[in-house]
């Protein structure tokens, strides 16, 4: 079971050029809005046509520009969950789900699978409701039910939680994650939300202006994003240009500091990143005098902005994020950072 994708397509100002494989797992395409991630899904589903490339699903060629193969979406067996769920507004829940069974001709089999799916997705009692009578979470379940009864070989999820209210989102994430684990095929999910990506996927492909920067296991990516866009997308708040001094030391002119790092530095280093959580007033290493700028309170955390004493006045302040109960009574004169927590960014 595998999905192989190679796509080139001109998109306005940049070229969408992606090449990846997914196998029996949840892969997430993480990227900023307009980076081409939704277009990638549409090309796989056959809704859009790439300029060139090759798409193969479990050994079936869905698209190949050289041999001219381009299966219509109806024949691809690719399930696509749209951002707005795309339920047919004129049909009931039952009719909507039956649309996913159009390939099945046997009436009794249809009814049986419909009933099974209604039970699995906890939609019993809602059969005769129209989509607009359902809550956001119910709509998502109907849309998924409609897709899953059609027995797709891969499931594409386009920003599956963006249409939901915040308080619903976390509950549905857990629901969907459990469902996807049982589903047992490839799942390709698109999002710009790093938390969603982290919650749902085992692997993340970072997309930037049409290109795949890296494909890595989720936790490895967050631990070492490797590039500036990937660091930004994984939520790194403090990034500054840097150059190599020696194998374990880098110079950060903007911050006016030289940092000791755990990883070996390569010659083409472009920048370093420090996650806002990792500053520590008690750390012994990379300890420099700082000055307080301002702070913002969140329900359970505080974001403090500070500057290194030797910092370039034109550069933005540095973020330090910590749990409220750990906030020191007096702002410390010096802050340190463990060498392992300095991210080396190369692109």
């Amino acid at each position, binding site marked *: 079971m595998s999905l192989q994708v190679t796509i080139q397509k001109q998109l306005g100002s940049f070229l969408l050029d992606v090449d990846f494989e997914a196998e029996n797992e949840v892969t997430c395409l993480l990227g900023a809005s307009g980076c081409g991630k939704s277009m990638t899904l549409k090309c796989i589903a056959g809704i859009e046509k790439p300029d060139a490339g090759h798409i193969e699903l479990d050994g079936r060629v869905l698209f190949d520009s050289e041999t001219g193969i381009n299966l219509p979406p109806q024949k691809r067996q690719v399930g696509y969950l749209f951002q707005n769920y*795309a339920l047919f507004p004129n049909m009931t829940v039952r009719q909507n789900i039956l649309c996913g069974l159009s390939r099945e001709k046997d009436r009794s089999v249809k009814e049986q699978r419909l009933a099974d799916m209604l039970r699995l997705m906890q939609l019993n009692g809602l059969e005769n409701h129209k989509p607009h009578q359902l809550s956001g979470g119910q709509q998502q379940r109907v849309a998924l039910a409609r897709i899953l009864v059609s027995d797709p070989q891969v499931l594409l999820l386009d920003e599956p939680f963006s249409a939901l209210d915040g308080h619903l989102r976390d509950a549905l994430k857990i629901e969907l994650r459990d469902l996807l684990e049982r589903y047992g095929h490839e799942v390709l999910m698109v999002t710009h939300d790093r938390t969603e990506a982290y919650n749902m996927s085992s692997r993340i492909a970072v997309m930037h202006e049409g290109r795949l920067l890296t494909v890595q296991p989720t936790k490895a990516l967050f631990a070492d994003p490797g590039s500036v866009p990937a660091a930004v997308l994984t939520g790194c708040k403090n990034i500054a240009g840097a150059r190599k001094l020696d194998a374990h030391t880098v110079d950060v002119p903007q911050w006016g500091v030289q940092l000791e790092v755990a990883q070996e530095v390569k010659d083409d280093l472009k920048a370093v990143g420090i996650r806002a959580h990792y500053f520590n007033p008690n750390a012994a290493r990379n300890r420099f005098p700082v000055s307080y700028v301002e702070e913002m309170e969140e329900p359970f955390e505080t974001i403090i902005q500070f500057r290194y004493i030797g910092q370039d006045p034109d550069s933005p302040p540095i973020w330090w994020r910590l749990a409220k109960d750990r906030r020191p009574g007096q702002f410390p004169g010096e802050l340190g950072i463990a060498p392992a927590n300095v991210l080396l960014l190369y692109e």
Partner: protein
Amino acid sequence: MSVDWYPLWNSLRIAAISCVLVFFLGIFFAYYAAKLPRMIKGILDVFLTLPMVLPPTVCGYFLLLIFGVKRPLGIFLLQFGVKFVMTWYGGVLAAAVVAFPLMYRTARGAFESFDKTLAYSGQTLGLSNTYIFWRVRMPACRQGILAGTVLAFARALGEYGATSMLIGYTPGRTATISTTVYQLWRTNDEAGALFWVLINLAISTVVLLTVNMLEARQKKAVAK
């Protein structure tokens, strides 16, 4: 007084038949025009909308130019006994040409505001494009298409200029309500003209009331 009801019957059948024609043609062109390359679409759009902005008499002039019995196409059609000049079904042609842009443009507007993800999701679920068109797209665009149909019917019913150019006024053969009103007025039969004006008003009112009722019922159904 015995009334010759022929104009009423003739007007209604001309409007009804041309409305059916325009319904399908308008939807057909609206649907396929949306898929054409921009350049061709622009040119086709101007051509298809022209009858709406041209004076109906100019449309009638062009129709005569094409279907006149001394023109190549007119001569050709005459071999099969088909003559659009001075016949009641010529009135269908005239009304259809003039009413077409109303259907075409309203349907196109409805199709353009249609949420494409509905069609895409149908395709990925394995539904045929024909099924998606009739069971998803058309119901979603029902409001616009209904409005276009009513406008086209009303316009066809009231057609005067192109009709009088192409089929003239022959009592009992080509007379419609609108040409009868003019003819009676011209011959100083004011009472007769008023009678047909009132008939026309009654029909138009009934049509519009029906539409409003349908819309209200639909809104209620959606709100439920």
